[in-house]
């Protein structure tokens, strides 16, 4: 069984002035030991909300979240249950997630097991080394570090709790390319060396492609496709994944103009009928407007929620399948 397992998670928000918004509408996801899972999708698709639900920061309205076999319960005013300590979260903004008035050492030491001063100092030194910061950094304050270094501090603080899974919400946003590269390499080596499971939420698809072992693609509160990273990138089964990947610019100097996806993410309070993606989908046909497709298993460890990819079939380019369907319809 996976270390972190989310099944059909539903998260509702109250909207100001009444009304409910279903930010996550039945999403499933699992993270294994030593595995990096990338979660991608446009802003407003519910990926950050799902990340928060995964660690119990927001209450769920349905579905289950299990960590190391036990149910994750929403955070209350009481202390977080001890068994959840090994499930950690790193926030997007390292400028606001660290306390500006405390030294790095004291903030990192918060997560360590209580011990003598010398033990704590040794622990802080070890964690600094683990994330590639000089041991002398422990005496300094957050403002003395760059954005990339602060994000390392945030990761060191999460590592202090000896976690088995870390959920990272856009950890690479707002960093320069070089700092991004350093952090991406760090995440890969931490996962490999410590057997850490990482759930990496990011809107930067190139980085996710580079770092993640498996990828989940989310659209308007539901998962539309999951699969091993490279096969999914080479042959996206869901039209939405295909569109996302086609929109990524390439720094190769060739003047390739990425393709845009027409339309906008609809209001989650009023999702479209049938497949939630159908109003923006180039291949949508009648069934897509009426029936919502379930996420079904395809061959090669892939899943997709699209009427073009029948359960158990080998994933095929959406355009080919759509052409077939159009052909059959014409014959009939």
């Amino acid at each position, binding site marked *: 069984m996976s270390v972190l397992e989310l099944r059909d998670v539903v998260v509702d928000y109250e909207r100001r002035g009444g009304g409910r918004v279903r930010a996550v509408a039945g999403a499933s996801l699992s993270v294994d030991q030593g595995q990096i899972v990338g979660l991608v999708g446009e802003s407003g698709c519910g990926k950050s909300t799902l990340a928060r639900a995964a660690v119990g920061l927001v209450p769920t309205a349905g579905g289950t979240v299990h960590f190391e076999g036990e149910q994750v319960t929403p955070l209350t005013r009481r202390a977080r249950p001890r068994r959840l300590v090994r499930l950690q979260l790193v926030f997007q903004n390292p400028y606001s997630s660290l306390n500006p008035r405390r030294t790095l050492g004291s903030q990192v030491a918060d997560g360590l097991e209580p011990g003598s001063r010398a033990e704590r100092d040794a622990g802080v030194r070890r964690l600094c080394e683990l994330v590639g910061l000089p041991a002398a950094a422990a005496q300094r304050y957050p403002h003395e570090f760059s954005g990339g270094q602060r994000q390392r501090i945030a990761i060191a603080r999460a590592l202090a709790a000896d976690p088995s899974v870390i959920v990272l919400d856009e950890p690479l946003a707002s960093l320069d390319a070089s700092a991004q*590269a350093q952090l991406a390499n760090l995440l890969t080596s931490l996962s490999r060396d410590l057997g850490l499971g990482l759930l990496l939420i990011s809107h930067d698809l190139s980085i996710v492609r580079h770092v993640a072992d498996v990828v989940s693609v989310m659209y308007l509160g539901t998962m539309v496709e999951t699969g091993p990273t490279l096969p999914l990138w080479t042959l996206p089964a869901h039209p939405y994944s295909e569109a996302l990947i086609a929109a990524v610019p390439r720094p190769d100097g060739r003047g390739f103009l990425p393709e845009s996806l027409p339309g*906008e993410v609809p209001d989650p309070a009023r999702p479209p009928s049938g497949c939630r993606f159908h109003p923006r989908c180039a291949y949508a046909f009648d069934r897509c407007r009426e029936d919502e497709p379930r996420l079904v298993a395809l061959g090669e460890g892939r899943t997709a929620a699209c009427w073009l990819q029948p359960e158990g079939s080998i994933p095929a380019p959406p355009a080919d399948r759509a052409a077939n369907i159009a052909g059959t319809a014409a014959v009939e």
Partner: protein
Amino acid sequence: MSLLTVEGLRVRLPTPAGPVTVVDGVSYEVEPGEVFGIAGESGSGKTVSMLALLGLLPDRSSVEGSALFAGRELVAMPRKQLREISGRELTMVFQDPYTSLHPMLSIGRQLTEHIQKHHGVGRGSADSRAAELLADVRIPDPEAALRAYPHQFSGGMRQRIAIAIALACGPKLLIADEPTTALDVTVQAGILQLLDRLRREHELAVVLITHDLGVLSAIADRVSIFYAGRVVEAGSREEVLQQPRHPYTRALLEALPHPEAAKEKPLVAIGGAPPSPGSIPAGCAFHPRCSFARDDCRSEVPPLVQVGGRRLACPVDPFAT
């Protein structure tokens, strides 16, 4: 003749610790109808060098050098005269479409105010011109959009509206400062396509400032790489991005995950951090992070010289072909 010729532009900004040089002698030309890309890490002076042209720097800043725009010198031009040019012939769109529009004014008001002011036309014709502009940047139902407020639009749509406002007076040059950084890739692609179409249809020159070399690669004709307030390499998009010659340009490209590269290859990060303005290293500002640095790199600022089809500020030139 070039539309914009910048030569030896030097900008000092006031700080509590005294003036700090943020732009240190940059030179470039922008041709009519081209997309000229400026890339560099945060703090490399790319935005400040543009704000200087528009007279948008804080008080007590000093600007030296020359910036000829359509034959007129912008540096040291009286503010009133500069106001006439900027906003009409020379306009700018900013990174954050959430703060660059006024939240309390309707889109129509923000657009027509601009048109009425600069063109001296009446309300009715300004309204129809505004609707045309919104249609031009592909805002669905432009008539209704004129009566709406910024919060009713998504980030991508707001950026389109900001571009429409910038286009209102038929500018010759549009400065776009990280116009897609706050947007999703799917929306970013739409804005890039829009800029590409506008420059074709309106013969508009665009200066595109970005930290994202993928974005530059999509639409820039020529690019200029900034480091610590200086240009280190400049040339055609193909030349600079396909065969980078400056160690910094090369390092920047190697730090990026390539969408077709093998997965196992770790990304190559640049050692160290970019210097902050006010503590720029002597000689070539990149030398402390450069594995090819020689003694002269540590003492002399390398001049930007013509090397083949490009300009390069690296006497070592380790990647010469």
